[in-house]
């Protein structure tokens, strides 16, 4: 019924139109020597304030870098003053525990006092992207709990990015994370080329900017022209190069999604959001205030984590009446659809038929995210599952629509860092499918199979990141 709605590309609130290109990589460096920016392929550096030696910043400038200083609420004005004096281009503001309105206010005031500087808000809660291990290993030993065989858990930043997009739509989300260096070898050698490449691929796939901690050993090795260090970084540069390509500058692609997650609390909704990302359910985050009929066009399902207002309840009711699915997670109230009896009820959930759609109330928060996302897939049904992946429990795929040409772009990130054949099923028909990867460049033609309104194809070996270009089939004029 809603086939094709997926391709009525969501432009939530018209907020993405004027944004600059995203996917930028910032390197957070130590005070050791630096190689030239041109050789690195990255030109934005972040220094933690205070920088012991001011000459370091001028040296970095001379090497071709743009400098950002990192500040906290306690030292923002001092850092901003220092940034101006040292020819830094901007300040990255880590708001810490400040709430979003307070951090906005602080930023606005700093920006008005220092109009030449760029102020970027660092979104808290970034995680090292990885296929997560189950063991908790520390100096006290290993904590291990047995279980039935678990599917790989992926730590991704997609939920964080989509949340930031919803609450600061005018800004490209920026996040950072710390590498886990508890392992002796990793502590000594630093992250591998694959680790850096995964972080870069992820930020590009999610259309966000990321700050990467450059391991001090690698930084020194690069500055001293050590072959091993450059071999590593040259691998990483291929991913930097891929992420910097954008076919229409100034016109970023729009995320395609048919599920809206309504929340104003990232922490409460995180587990559910993260697992939906891992299960490749394309979603956008909506603020509770965004629950207006006009903003829901193109969506098939709404997953609501925040208590809806009376007006929002009416919107949800109408959405279901028109065939949509609404899922309320751990929310209680006297809702309009309670005027009818549920068609199904157990201790964990109640299902109401509303018009041609359904409203499901889950009685508890998301306890088992795996079960939750499987239930979301089940509710969505095969026909409305606009995107499915097989043989790839560690891959996240994120679809976009490129505006000027109407091309669909599917960004893929494989958190296992091992070549995997990925079988994709996507809603719609396409005249050509091209696969672009850092390893093989652009582009390899892929032969699809069309089945029941879907297109299926296989990426032969997705290593870390890749991009599929799907050109729409042009409708032939009627004779």
């Amino acid at each position, binding site marked *: 019924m809603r086939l094709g709605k997926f391709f009525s590309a969501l432009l939530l609130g018209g907020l993405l139109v004027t944004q600059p290109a995203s996917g930028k990589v910032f390197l957070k460096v130590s005070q050791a020597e630096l190689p030239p920016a041109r050789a690195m392929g990255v030109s934005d550096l972040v220094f933690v304030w205070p920088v012991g030696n001011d000459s370091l910043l001028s040296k970095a400038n001379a090497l071709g870098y743009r400098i950002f200083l990192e500040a906290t609420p306690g030292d923002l004005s001092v850092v901003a003053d220092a940034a101006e004096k040292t020819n830094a281009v901007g300040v990255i503001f880590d708001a810490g525990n400040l709430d979003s309105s307070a951090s906005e206010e602080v930023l606005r005031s700093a920006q008005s006092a220092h109009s030449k500087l760029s102020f970027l808000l660092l979104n808290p809660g970034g995680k090292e992207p990885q296929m997560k291990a*189950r063991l908790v290993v520390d100096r006290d030993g290993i904590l291990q709990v047995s279980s039935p065989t678990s599917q790989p858990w992926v730590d991704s930043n997609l939920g964080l990015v989509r949340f930031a997009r919803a609450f600061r739509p005018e800004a490209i989300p920026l996040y950072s994370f710390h590498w886990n260096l*508890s392992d002796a070898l990793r502590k000594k050698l630093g992250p591998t080329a694959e680790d850096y490449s995964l972080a870069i691929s992820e930020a590009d796939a999610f259309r966000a900017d990321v700050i990467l901690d450059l391991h001090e050993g690698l930084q020194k090795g690069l500055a001293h022209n050590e072959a091993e260090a450059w071999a590593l970084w040259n691998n990483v540069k291929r991913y930097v190069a891929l992420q910097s390509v954008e076919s229409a500058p100034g016109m970023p692609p729009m995320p395609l999604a048919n599920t809206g997650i309504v929340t104003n609390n990232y922490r409460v909704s995180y587990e559910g959001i993260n697992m939906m990302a891992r299960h490749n359910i394309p979603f956008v985050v909506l603020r509770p205030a965004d629950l207006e009929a006009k903003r829901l066009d193109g969506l098939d399902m709404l997953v609501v984590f925040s208590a809806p207002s009376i007006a929002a309840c009416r919107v949800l009711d109408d959405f279901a009446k028109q065939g949509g699915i609404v899922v309320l997670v751990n929310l209680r109230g006297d809702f309009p659809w309670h005027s009818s009896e549920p068609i199904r009820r157990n201790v964990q959930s109640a299902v109401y038929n509303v018009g041609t759609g359904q409203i499901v109330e889950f009685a508890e928060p998301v306890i088992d995210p795996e079960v939750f996302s499987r239930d979301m897939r089940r509710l969505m049904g095969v026909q409305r599952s606009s995107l499915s992946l097989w043989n790839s429990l560690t891959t996240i795929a994120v679809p976009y629509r490129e505006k000027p040409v109407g091309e669909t772009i599917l960004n893929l990130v494989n958190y296992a860092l091992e070549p995997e054949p990925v079988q994709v099923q996507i809603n719609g028909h396409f005249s050509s499918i091209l696969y672009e990867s850092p390893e093989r460049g652009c582009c390899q033609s892929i032969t699809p199979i069309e089945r029941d309104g879907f297109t299926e194809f296989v990426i032969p070996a997705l290593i870390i990141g890749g991009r599929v270009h799907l050109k729409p089939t042009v409708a032939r004029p009627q004779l």
Partner: protein
Amino acid sequence: MRWNRMLLALLIVVIMGIPVVGISAQTIPFVHKKRYAMGTVYEVVAYDAEVARASAVIDKALDEVVRLDTMMSNYKPESDLSRMNSTAHFHSVQIPADLYKVIQESLRYSHLSDGEFDVSVGPVVELWKTAMQGGPTPTVEDEARARACVGYKKIELIPPDRVEFHSPCMRLDLGSIGKGYAVDRMAEILRAGGVERAYLNAGGSTMYGIGTPPEHAGWTVHLRDPSNRLDPQVVLTENSVSTSEQTAPSALEGDAPGHIVVPASGKPLRTRYAVSVVAKSATTSDALSTTLLLLGPEKGEAVIKGLPDVAAIWISREGEKTIAGRGLHIFLKADSPSIVEESNVENKAVTKPKQN
């Protein structure tokens, strides 16, 4: 009885509490590596003074899992298992030694459980997998058709390296034993490479301990407890533990099908239990955990009676537990710290949950 308790308490203190003098976690670095294979994550933690060497040996062990996955994957059309599944019907085909060994072991557990454990259950599992993903529930006819393909007695192994299916639609699925075999192979490689203190984990469901971690006399594993009341534990030293449980039910449809299917009925298993099995090899613990889940505590206890160095624990959602086996220990830290039970030689313990 009191003396037994005292001895047991002493044993637990020795195994779990007292530091091993002279070996310090502060001085021995550890290496932790992981790899995706067989649809899950394999991990190894090794304490070793020579970090680079240990790291290289772990890589080799993880490479072995990938090699076995390439051989035994049901999802990869080019795997030896897929090739065998499509060509061995009424016609013997040559298979690699590892695949031969795993099928041989599987048949052992099929005989032992009178067919409750059966690697030929694949066609029925496949049928229910679609239902689990939101597809239609299989019809009676679908079930009957799939069930006709199942039956370990129709698998013929022809030494040294050939197999033949005496059924037109037989397809083997090694999901309930392959991970254990892979873990045993990894342990062999790690030992051969000089790694003396390591902990191996296949997706949380099969674990193996080589040697001991610094300052401890074994690798402690908290076992799956669906009641969250008992906190059963094992301490691994040159042995393995595996856990099986039916897939967590849907919050939407409480009776949604799970991934473990009863070969005889062709329907998803309905059970209140999670089962954990301790054994000397991971192949054994992996295969037995599925077998004993299918059999349940009563029949399962009878099966492991004849097996040396195997212990098992069944725990229900309500906290009812059954422990059986001999030679290896499962410790229980009950609600009251003064009550400690264990599986012990020539004995079994069946207890009811405490009434709160």
